């Protein structure tokens, strides 16, 4: 794989994470537990969507370097099938109850902020610039979701139980965040990508501290699901895309 081909794949991983999670948060619009929370959660969705658009734009440029022409953000978002999506399995998991949504956000945010901070030092200027902007947003997301994990974990008996189940249920999707394939390894060696393996210890420490404050138990690292970043997804992604892509697919000639 040429380094640009690897970079394209890497950028789509970053972009797809943002888009898919933003799409999930979009399902909550108007249905949050309290108005303030509805507004706050939509802010996170908007940040992630904005980040995805920046990554797609750069991905399109990199693709143009390879092929002469590159796709735009909407072609990436609306004209690829599930097996072409490169997001983590974690972010495509259904919203569940509010605790499930918070837990999913928390596990992702803690990783995302570490990743983006590392990428802010990328040798690729474009990657570094997008990551630096996104890292500020992700820092807030991580604080917010951690705060909610603590509130719900150390809230009522019921909320504690629900939060523990949410964390337990999603834990098997966290391993994928720290796996590195050959393409990513080469990019990391060139200083373009971050070495995800190096994020594991700080992530463990940060997640462990929040879970402890939340009086929640950290699940053991058992069997981990993987495949999202090579296009093998859970059944959920197909349905998410069917909804999201309906209009551009049904009216391929339309401009919206």
């Amino acid at each position, binding site marked *: 794989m040429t380094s640009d081909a690897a970079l394209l794949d890497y950028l789509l991983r970053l972009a797809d994470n943002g888009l898919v999670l933003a799409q999930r948060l979009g399902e909550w619009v108007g249905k949050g537990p309290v108005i*303030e929370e509805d*507004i*706050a959660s939509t*802010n996170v969705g908007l940040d992630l969507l904005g980040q995805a658009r920046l990554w797609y734009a750069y991905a399109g440029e990199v693709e143009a370097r390879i092929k002469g022409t590159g796709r735009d953000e909407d072609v990436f978002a609306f004209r690829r099938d599930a097996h072409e999506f490169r997001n983590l399995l974690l972010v495509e998991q259904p919203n569940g109850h509010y605790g499930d949504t918070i837990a999913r956000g928390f596990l992702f945010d803690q990783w995302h902020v570490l990743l983006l901070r590392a990428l802010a030092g990328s040798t690729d200027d474009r990657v570094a610039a997008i990551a630096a902007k996104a890292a500020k947003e992700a820092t807030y997301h991580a*604080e*917010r979701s951690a*705060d909610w994990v603590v509130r719900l974990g150390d809230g009522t008996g019921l909320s504690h139980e629900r939060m523990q189940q949410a964390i337990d249920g999603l834990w098997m999707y966290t391993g994928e965040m720290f796996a590195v394939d050959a393409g990513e390894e080469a990019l990391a060696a060139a200083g373009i990508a971050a070495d995800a393996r190096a994020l594991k210890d700080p992530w463990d420490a940060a997640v462990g501290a929040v879970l402890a404050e939340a009086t929640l138990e950290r699940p053991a690292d058992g069997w981990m699901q993987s495949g999202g970043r090579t296009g093998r997804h859970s059944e959920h992604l197909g349905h998410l895309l069917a909804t999201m892509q309906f209009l551009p697919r049904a009216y391929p000639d339309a401009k919206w």
Partner: protein
Amino acid sequence: MSKEWPLWEVFIRSQHGLAHKHAGSLHAADAEMAIRNARDVYTRRNEGVSIWVVRSSDVVASSPGDREALFDPAQSKVYRHPTFFPMPPEVKNI
């Protein structure tokens, strides 16, 4: 029904070096959450760089019944305003 989250008054300082100004109110379980909610509710359009929150129940306000006693006396002290002192037109920079 669960206990309602208390009401908070939100004050925002904008970027231009002005004082904190009342922006509105919101509900939050505690002060920390109130700050976060204020950030999300009242600074979506770059409105501020600093936030204060105060429990609404802690705000002490002057009473409308005292309006005349409190504020009318200031009306007769026009000499506090620069326009009270007409300057000759040929005098500049004052």
